[in-house]
């Protein structure tokens, strides 16, 4: 099957185009860096595979997800490149196109946002542009899918065409250096050695590593230094400056031939929104208000009533139906207990919170797709700068509210390795949606009057601790680099319902899936541990294996206000996934629904110890999936262990302080 690489600048509608062409579910976002992984889809005509590469401005990588593109070009096999170009930002988009044309693979341009360009007074003569670049161009509307049929057809036709790499003249000094490089390096099979030479001299770090693998260090260093010296003498410019300037003048010429401009002095919708949202005085209050609305909608206004309905269904009709079914087929008491007390109680106890989780993911997707996320980075940068990070680090943290795993991955867009590491280490402190069921359970039992406020206080606790620790980490263990911040603020767009629903579902389905696998298995195991004991089966819960295991932890947890074996057992299982804490409690306390569980818990917890317990669940360790992701992203056992270790210590200290000081104050 043919392979086509989709390449383009960030915020050009690349992921939308990918979705339209492949028809598969894909994550669409406006924040530069939502597409952080290599994603492959099959074209609708089933004849080719398309690879969605991260959005980049240039092949010369600054951040980790930018390295992916150069790596892909050099090491993977593919037949064609589809280059998506934003018509309203032609100049900077074509700077990337030029580098792709130099690479010499058959390339086709999908020209997006022609309508936006027209509104700005930019009129592109497509035919002339195609002639100047010597590539086929199709104009598309990526959001609606207009023009995608033609793109697909042309992609199929073009395979036979042989492409000749674009040849830009870089001045005699650099041209000599390129010739020297090619002579030393020899010919390449899959791409022109000239492309490699240009990227090498431009300072592409991935290409340099690639070259260093084949050439001895003295050789490539002397090649580079000689070029640097000669170009400096001849052109009074550094290598990357010269290359950038030459490409730019080529692009300018192309644009001159094919684009007409009209001066249109118009205030756009984006300008009007930004005048308020990024206003000096109300920008931050608006952000806080948006967050408050998000929580109110998720917990009070929309989520809670839906959850109650679902809970009533699980506890009533479903349990009755299953019990009747099992009786009818003559199942044993053991099976009945396993299904009703183990599986329905454990899995159902978690599934009840699906509405809240989907609502939360829906709003996070909305913030991403609308373009507001990048403004959040801008608005919050001053605060983040004070703790040694930059505004971009705020986005992984917000995504972490949904789920810590994509949050940790979103840190890839941060350019500085140090800031990226700190962000990854701190993202687990963001209260993810899996922790919600735990709060919902306790808040309903102990803080019925102020539900949203108490939950909000936990989120604030997580964020505050993250900021304090960021400062601490930047001052101590990770203090070498200075922090850097440049962010593109894409125009606002009204998110499309379809795309919103897709990305909500993509994020939320993991939670449902987890309920069917992890939590299902966990519930069965926990129930068995509570059913069996050293003295046989069907023992009193207090004599079960689970009580035995939890009992070991109980004395340690006593200073925190919840020194019971039940709490110990729930926390232990919660490492698998935090929502299992609720499953475990449902099974241990052996009750039909959330309401009666809450009633029962009043005898085991006080409001103070409940709050201390929630704080502990918030902080104590990242869940298994997050730990695995941190390891994958940092490639360091040391930092992975550190992320677990510091969280445990922090949780213990914070819960200790809450409980002890609270007790002293008489709560």
């Amino acid at each position: 099957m043919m392979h086509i690489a989709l390449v383009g600048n960030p915020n050009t509608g690349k992921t939308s185009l990918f979705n339209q062409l492949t028809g598969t579910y894909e994550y669409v976002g406006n924040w530069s860096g939502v597409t952080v992984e290599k994603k492959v889809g099959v074209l609708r005509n089933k004849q080719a595979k398309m690879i969605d590469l991260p959005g980049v401005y240039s092949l010369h990588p600054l951040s980790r997800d930018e390295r992916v593109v150069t790596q892909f070009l050099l090491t993977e096999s593919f037949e064609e490149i589809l280059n998506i170009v934003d018509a309203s930002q032609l100049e900077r988009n074509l700077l990337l196109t030029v580098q792709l044309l130099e690479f010499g693979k058959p390339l086709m341009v999908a020209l997006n946002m022609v309508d936006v360009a027209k509104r700005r007074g930019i009129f592109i003569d497509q035919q002339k542009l195609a002639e100047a670049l010597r590539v086929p161009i199709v104009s598309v509307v990526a959001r609606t899918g207009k023009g995608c049929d033609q793109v697909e057809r042309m992609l199929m036709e073009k395979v036979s065409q042989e492409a000749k790499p674009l040849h830009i003249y870089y001045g005699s000094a650099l041209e000599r250096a390129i010739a020297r490089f090619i002579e030393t390096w020899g010919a390449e099979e899959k791409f022109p050695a000239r492309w490699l030479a240009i990227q090498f001299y431009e300072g592409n770090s991935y290409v340099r590593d690639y070259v260093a693998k084949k050439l001895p260090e003295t050789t490539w260093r002397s090649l580079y230094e000689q070029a640097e010296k000669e170009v400096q003498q001849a052109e009074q410019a550094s290598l990357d400056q010269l290359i950038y300037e030459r490409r730019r003048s080529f692009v300018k010429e192309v644009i001159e031939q094919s684009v007409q401009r009209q001066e249109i002095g118009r205030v756009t919708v984006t300008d009007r929104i930004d005048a308020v949202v990024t206003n000096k005085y109300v920008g931050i209050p608006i952000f806080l208000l948006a967050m408050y609305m998000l929580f109110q909608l998720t917990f009070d206004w929309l989520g809670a009533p839906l959850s109650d309905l679902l809970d009533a269904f699980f506890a009533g009709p479903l349990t009755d139906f299953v019990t009747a079914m099992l009786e009818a087929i003559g199942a044993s008491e053991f099976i009945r207990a396993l299904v009703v007390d183990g599986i329905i109680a454990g899995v159902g106890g978690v599934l009840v919170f699906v509405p809240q989780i989907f609502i939360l993911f829906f709003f996070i997707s909305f913030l991403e797709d609308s373009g507001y996320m990048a403004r959040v980075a801008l608005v919050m940068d001053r605060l983040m700068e004070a703790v040694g990070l930059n505004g971009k680090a705020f986005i992984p943290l917000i995504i972490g509210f949904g789920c810590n795993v994509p949050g940790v991955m979103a840190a890839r867009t941060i350019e500085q390795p140090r800031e990226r590491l700190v962000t990854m280490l701190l993202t687990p402190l963001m209260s993810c949606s899996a922790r919600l069921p735990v709060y919902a359970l306790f808040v309903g039992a102990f803080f019925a009057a102020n539900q949203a406020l108490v939950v909000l206080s936990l989120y604030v606790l997580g964020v505050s601790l993250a900021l304090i620790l960021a400062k601490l980490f930047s001052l101590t263990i990770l203090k070498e680099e200075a922090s850097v911040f440049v962010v593109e603020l894409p125009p606002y767009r009204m998110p499309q319902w379809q795309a919103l629903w897709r990305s909500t579902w993509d994020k939320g389905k993991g939670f449902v899936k987890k309920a069917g696998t992890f939590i299902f298995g966990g519930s069965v195991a926990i129930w068995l541990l509570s059913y069996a004991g050293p003295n046989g089966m069907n023992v009193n819960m207090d004599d079960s294996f689970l009580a035995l295991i939890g009992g070991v932890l109980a004395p340690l947890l006593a200073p925190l206000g919840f020194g019971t074996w039940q709490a110990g057992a729930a926390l232990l299982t919660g490492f698998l996934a935090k929502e299992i804490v609720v499953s475990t409690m449902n099974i241990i306390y052996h009750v039909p629904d959330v309401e009666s569980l809450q009633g029962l818990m009043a005898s085991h917890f006080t409001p103070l110890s409940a709050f201390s317990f929630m704080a502990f669940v918030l902080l104590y360790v990242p869940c298994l999936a997050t730990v695995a992701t941190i390891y994958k992203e940092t490639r360091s056992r040391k930092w992975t262990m550190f992320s677990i270790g510091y969280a445990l210590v922090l949780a213990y200290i914070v819960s200790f302080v809450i409980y002890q000081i609270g007790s002293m104050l008489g709560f």
Partner: protein
Amino acid sequence: MVAMTQLRVGERAKIVDLSQVSNLVKRRLLDMGVTEGAEICLKCTMPLGGPFMIENCGQCVGIRRNEAKNIQVKPL
């Protein structure tokens, strides 16, 4: 010629000198088409020494005040 921080919000200017800007930031600005000779407009500034938002050819970029300080511009 003045530093970008001298501009008033809403004022337009031409970028004259980027050489004092740190390398990483300069690369990113060049990537986004904010080069010497480009025309920009200061859209807004964040309080307490927070970042600057500038517009260039219809696209907006946020940078820090201490980087903006190193960008020399000529008001139009």
